[in-house]
């Protein structure tokens, strides 16, 4: 850039700065992101603070009343509760399972490539296709005509495990997280495996020479090195979780028992024909994700600069 400025000084009013062609090349993408991401977020906010509760009322402005009134909608508080329960179980479950699998594999294991491929393949499948089979597996029919996993539990003598899955009014969303854990824990495993393997052998060796037990090597040398991996995984799983839509549509559709904000947006737009409410819910969703992601982005851009 300094050189560009020097060039400008040598030829006053003549040559353009050297960085200009680069900016021009990226300009179409900047315009596209500016319009489609930031412009439309603003536009969505505009709809959210309008009184447009059907498709004919002019937009107007109602001073954000929608953001308050939404909480009186009987379907909204449960939707928030469902999303939170789903998030806790899914993020926690995928994180623990992924870390466990990576921990078991990190020192090398026979047929490792095969294991990795099987744990990871569900990620290549759409939530919709996965939903087809999971809806079948998690069938809540009572014991005498049990099907799916409940039937399998019965055949294995594990009747105690049989349950009503996602149709349980209190804990249903925890069951809904099972297919999501199935899909994403391989990804977490891959992240952790790369993390484990990134810890230099000399570090572990040095700790062993100092008399650390194998557990202490993990506790004091390896695990602290995995914190950035854990953070990345948390953010990625967290934002997937808050946005969960496909999986629930495939398994339960729009039923109230598994209602979440992402489904609510869809229902407001297509079934209740209420753009203002749909946009309000979408804004809450955006806020939740932004709270999670912005600090992380700032942190990782700063970390990269330090490196």
């Amino acid at each position, binding site marked *: 850039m300094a050189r560009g400025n020097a060039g400008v000084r040598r030829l006053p009013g003549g040559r353009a700065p050297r960085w200009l062609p680069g900016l021009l*090349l990226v300009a179409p993408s900047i315009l596209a992101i500016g319009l489609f991401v930031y412009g439309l977020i603003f536009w969505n906010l505009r709809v959210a603070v309008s009184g447009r509760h059907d498709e004919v009322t002019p937009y107007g402005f109602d001073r954000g009343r929608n953001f308050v009134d939404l909480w009186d909608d009987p379907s909204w508080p449960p939707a928030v509760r469902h999303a939170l329960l789903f998030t806790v179980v899914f993020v926690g479950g995928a994180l623990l399972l992924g870390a466990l699998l990576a921990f078991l594999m990190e020192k090398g294991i026979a047929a490792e490539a095969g294991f990795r491929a099987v744990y990871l393949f569900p990620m290549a499948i759409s939530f919709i296709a996965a939903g087809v089979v999971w809806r079948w597996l998690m069938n809540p029919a009572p014991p005498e005509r049990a099907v799916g996993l409940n039937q399998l539990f019965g055949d294995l003598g594990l009747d105690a495990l049989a349950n009503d899955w996602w149709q349980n009014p209190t804990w249903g969303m925890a069951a809904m997280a099972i297919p999501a854990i199935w899909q994403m824990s391989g990804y977490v495993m891959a992240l952790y495996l790369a993390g484990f393997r990134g810890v230099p052998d000399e570090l572990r060796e040095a700790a062993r020479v100092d008399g650390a037990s194998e557990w202490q090597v993990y506790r004091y040398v390896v695990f602290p090195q995995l914190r950035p991996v854990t953070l990345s995984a948390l953010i990625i799983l967290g934002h997937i979780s808050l946005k969960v839509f496909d999986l629930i549509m495939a398994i339960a559709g729009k039923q109230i028992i598994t209602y979440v904000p992402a489904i609510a947006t869809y229902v407001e737009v297509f079934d209740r024909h209420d753009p203002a409410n749909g946009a309000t819910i979408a804004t809450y969703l955006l806020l939740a994700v932004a709270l999670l*992601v912005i600090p992380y982005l700032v942190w990782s851009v700063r970390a990269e600069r330090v490196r």
Partner: protein
Amino acid sequence: MRASPVGRTVRFAVLLAFLVVFLIPVYVLVVTSFKPLDEADPAAAWELPSNWSLDGWSGAWETLRPGLANSFKIAVTGSLIAAALGSLNGYVLSKWRFPGSDAVFTLFLFGMFIPYQAVMIPLAGLLTRMELAGTIRGLVLAHVVYGIPICTLIFRNYYVTIPNELIEAARVDGAGLLRTYSSIVLPVSGPAFAVTLIWQFTSLWNDFLFAVFLGAPDSWPVTVMLNNTAGSGAVAVQYNQQMAAALLASLPTLVVYLLLGRFFMRGLMAGALKG
């Protein structure tokens, strides 16, 4: 300090147990898809077919064929364009920076995480005004635009590893922006294109949200068609066909994953912002 044989056996056994659990859904899908209709009863889900039949598969093929064609058009075009844009952006943002390019990059990155619901309502309106609502071109446009952030990220993280001296040398020799790109950067971009194309193809193929908000029956990809055939509450669901359809709809991404899994992994890593 290698692990003891006992420890290794225990670890192997636990991993094997999880492997079996991971494959349970696949077993049910495959087994049911090859059953004739009269055997495809949820109560017999765990049993092998007594007569193997392809009826489910042929039915699924008939139902999903238009959706498969749409999905191919959307996923192939959408990922090619987004990858090309990502490559150019990544090049400029890593090797030909302009004032504020870091800020631009950060603003792009946020676009990767937004819940698309937050733009879907105005986006549908915008596409209607552009007369692209419900068309394949409209879906491709949306996928390309919202694919720019991840593609830019993957390419930028990849290009950072190209030595600056190479770029400087080309500049000194009088090569401009595009000349440097085509003679130095593009020839080494193969792996980054592989990662990006596989990643984009997979996410576009598996997309459901954009398709239901912006698509129409003519442009519905296979995910929407699959979800419709699986419709809840239907009187007589043909389970063999439904399971075959779920497998058929997943085959392209599974094949890509099996053949190019190595690159798929790298794409996943890029998603974690650690290139």
